[in-house]
């Protein structure tokens, strides 16, 4: 409970500092949103020409796109501390984290909060809501609950990726760019139905990096496409949990990484 109130206190401070320059902030949020608007606009252009993609319509893909977009933007907003963690290592700031009477994971997590991602969240949410209204999904209490768990699972998944990127800094100092493949690349590939990818690609992004579990499989259930996909229904029902599991494993990795920390700094 103490941690929670402390977290909100930190977040409040972060938000206050970010809206200090109001005009710049508004511009930034708009710029963020405009970048993602053209992303989806381009997908719409392709559908305008090709009509369908592996049996998926534009708005079904919009559903996928909206889900992954929301998860990623929320993850960037709350997981920012891990995303920019390398500068703590480069400057040697992590030493101060170690001497405070709080867990390292919590401190790094609570250290940053990127409010300007609201633009991106809003854009993804709008696409999701429009897609939803076009598709006439038969919502039930189970489905709403399942959607919620999937979104939280997806957010955990992306935060987990940031944690991996941050942890690797204990060894490499500079953050490893390769993680971009899974974060930005994950959003990009997650915007399309997984069935279009080759088997090895699909398996990698299901069992090793469980992107499909928090986006594609949940959409199959919510859009009632399980039958056509040939995926086992039990697997689909359990899939979103993979996001939590993934984050759990990355937290263990983080703890192990902290033990290997050697101060740099200048």
């Amino acid at each position, binding site marked *: 409970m103490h941690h929670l109130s402390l977290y909100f206190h930190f977040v409040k401070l972060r938000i206050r500092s970010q809206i200090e320059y109001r005009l710049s902030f508004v511009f930034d949020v708009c710029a963020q949103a405009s970048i993602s608007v053209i992303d989806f606009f381009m997908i719409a252009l392709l559908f305008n020409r090709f009509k369908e*993609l592996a049996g998926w319509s534009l708005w079904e893909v919009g559903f996928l796109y909206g889900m992954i977009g929301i998860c990623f933007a929320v993850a960037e907003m709350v997981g920012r501390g891990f995303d920019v963690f390398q500068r703590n290592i480069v400057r040697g700031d992590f030493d101060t984290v170690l001497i405070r009477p709080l867990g390292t994971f919590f401190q790094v997590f609570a250290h940053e909060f990127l409010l300007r991602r609201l633009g991106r969240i809003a854009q993804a949410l709008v696409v999701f809501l429009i897609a939803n209204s076009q598709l006439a999904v038969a919502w039930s209490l189970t489905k709403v609950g399942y959607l919620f768990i999937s979104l939280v699972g997806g957010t955990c998944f992306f935060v987990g990726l940031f944690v991996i990127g941050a942890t690797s800094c204990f060894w490499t100092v500079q953050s490893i760019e390769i993680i*971009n493949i899974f974060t930005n690349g994950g959003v990009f590939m997650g915007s399309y139905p997984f069935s*279009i990818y080759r088997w090895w690609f699909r398996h990698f992004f299901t069992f090793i990096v469980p992107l499909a579990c928090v986006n594609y499989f949940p959409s199959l259930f919510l859009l009632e496409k399980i039958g056509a996909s040939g995926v086992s229904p039990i697997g689909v029902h359990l899939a979103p949990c993979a996001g939590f599991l993934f984050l759990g494993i990355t937290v263990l990795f983080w703890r192990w990484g902290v033990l290997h920390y050697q101060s740099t700094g200048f």
Partner: protein
Amino acid sequence: MRSLCFAFQVYLAFAKKSFQRRMQYRVANLAGLTTNFFFLLVHIFVYTAFYAARPAPQPLSLDEIITYFVLCQVSFMLMPFWGTRSEVTSAIKDGSVALQLTKPVDFQAYWFADECGRALYYLLMRGLPTFLISLLFFKVTIPQQPTVLMAFTVSMMLAVFMSNAITITIFSSGFWTLDTTGISGMSYSIITLFSGMLVPIALWPEWLAHIARWLPFEGLIDIPFSIYLGKITGIAVWIAIGKQMVWNLFFIGLGRLFLTRGFSRLVIQGG
């Protein structure tokens, strides 16, 4: 003539320094290569699936689309909006522009030289490897006529040049707005959309393609690649290249105007 020759040597030295600075990060480059390749792969998966569903003839065949995106991954890093930006970009914001002004060189030309070194680095270390590896794995078409390759090379150079002219113009607005994140973000969206980087303009609906034809940004991606693919031929090649030149001059002039106006009202921040 002598002084011109000397000036050229000075800017060449700047370009060389900028190139060498980037050579330090070899491992980062390898990671970048992998990332480029990953995005290329996903693009190819997506288009293959789209084309599978609709076998009717399209303005570009699937092989041509694949070549288009290979070229995209080869060249987008050469341009500052999509690659990494040069340090000069932040000079106006962080005040280090004051230091640059003490040097007896033209600031815009210096900025260009720095970017050219950067572009050359990305061409050799990212572009060429990406292209060669792609040749092994994908069906990349290669133009048979040497004239096409020559026209492509000229057009591509103009594209890179224009990308720098545009970037300089955008960031010179920092003299007035101080914070350029908003404006650079907005222009990033417009440029990314209308350059044809995400979807080739040939696949766009007529009305939108029409707008793109009147804007300068197709000169960054779509024009050079269309020349490469032989979609622009004969006299149209000259018109397309002429268009790129005119827009180049326009942005160089505008950037120059912004810089001279900006310098005359410059207040240095930072410290």
